[in-house]
């Protein structure tokens, strides 16, 4: 049986990838964000995941508005990164886990989630930057990945409730997988930020704190708001918290917060990193 070892939740601002490329991790602007990964790196050393299931949103690299799936799951042997148009260096391909992808797809459709499946799928900064943050010393990453893209771009977005349910179904399917993989769940994006409009630069520290305080102990609190409520509270792009909500669902019923970092601003974003473990993984 696959074991879910924990969940990493982190902002995925493209500029973070730029800072990594320039080696700016210790720069005074950047270090308050990068320093939040100390506990994450220690944990990854101990937990040794070999699979990462990553909930993220595509920003117009793989999906254009001609076809916009609400939920899309990769089932590819590898996932390439590519030029996104704003100067980030293109990263190497990431290894997939097709058998596990198809298991998740079978299981989700049986659970009546009408997902889109992708045997070819470019992955953008929202997936690649968190991988770089998790394993900064290498490009030979120890994990095979299963990407799960959630539409946070074109409204109507899936409801927070549906995202939590999707994540829970993914978690149940992982626990039914007969292999002995050690699975890390990633939820990327957020927290509050807004790039466009006269409210550009919107940040809501109070709502972000509410999200961070609720994530481990009371994820149901996060689904009392609709997606548009979250846009109003957290900003147009703050709605990327949907990826966190889905990832939290995959961790299972009970989870424990292991680390938290919150810093304003990284680019236009209230940047956050959290590490959670499922309660059953915690030594007594």
């Amino acid at each position, binding site marked *: 049986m696959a074991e879910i070892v924990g969940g990493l939740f982190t902002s995925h601002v493209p*500029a973070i990838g730029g800072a990594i490329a320039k080696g700016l991790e210790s720069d005074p602007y950047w270090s308050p964000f990068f320093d939040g990964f100390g506990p994450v790196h220690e944990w990854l050393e101990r937990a040794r995941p070999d699979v990462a299931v990553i909930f993220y949103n595509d*920003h*117009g*690299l793989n999906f*254009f*508005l001609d076809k916009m799936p609400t939920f899309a799951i990769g089932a590819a042997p590898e996932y390439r990164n*590519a*030029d*996104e*148009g*704003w*100067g980030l260096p293109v990263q190497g391909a990431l290894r997939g886990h097709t058998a596990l992808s198809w298991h998740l797809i079978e299981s989700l459709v049986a659970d009546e989630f009408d997902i889109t499946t992708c045997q070819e799928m470019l992955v953008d900064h929202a997936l690649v930057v968190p991988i770089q943050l998790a394993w900064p010393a290498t490009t030979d990453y120890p994990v095979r990945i299963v990407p799960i893209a959630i539409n946070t*771009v*074109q*409204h*109507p977005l899936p409801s927070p409730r549906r995202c939590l349910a999707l994540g829970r179904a993914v978690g149940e399917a992982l626990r039914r997988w007969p292999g002995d993989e050690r699975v890390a769940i990633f939820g990327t994006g957020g927290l509050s930020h*807004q*790039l*466009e*409009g*006269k*409210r*550009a*630069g*919107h*940040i809501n*520290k*109070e*709502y972000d704190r*509410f999200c961070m305080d609720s994530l481990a102990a009371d994820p149901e609190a996060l689904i009392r*708001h*609709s997606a*548009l*409520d979250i*846009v*109003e*509270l957290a*900003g*147009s*792009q703050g709605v990327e918290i949907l990826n966190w909500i889905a990832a939290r669902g995959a961790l299972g019923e009970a989870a424990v917060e292991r680390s938290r970092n919150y*810093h*304003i*601003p990284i*680019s*236009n974003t*209230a940047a956050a990193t959290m590490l959670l473990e499922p309660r059953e993984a915690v030594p007594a």
Partner: protein
Amino acid sequence: MASVLRMPDSRAAVQRARVIPGTPVFDGAAASRGYAINAMCFSFNSAENRAAFLADEDGYCAKYHLTPEQRSAVASRSVLAMLDAGGNAYYLAKLAGIFGLNMQDIGAQQTGCTVEEFKARLAAHAEEE
């Protein structure tokens, strides 16, 4: 705290377009209206296409059938005008990159302040309780 987090009933909000001050919601109407400009911006994932735009902006916009409103918004470099014409922030960011503008430059332009003022406003949020 509770008052800030209390929201109108979300099912009622489905009945009519939700208005969030200063925040264009990229919904079906915007996605339809903005299809051409967003398609052009999507093409800027390719370095060759970015160069082609810079070499012949008029010709490139014509190739993607921008509406007159979209063409004039791009010509004016006004992000608010591009949003009004249906542009989506994630796609417009690719165009902004061609002009060498980052997210703070764009934020300043849309909110009518200098880049330094915009950065100071962002940083000021860190001090809030």
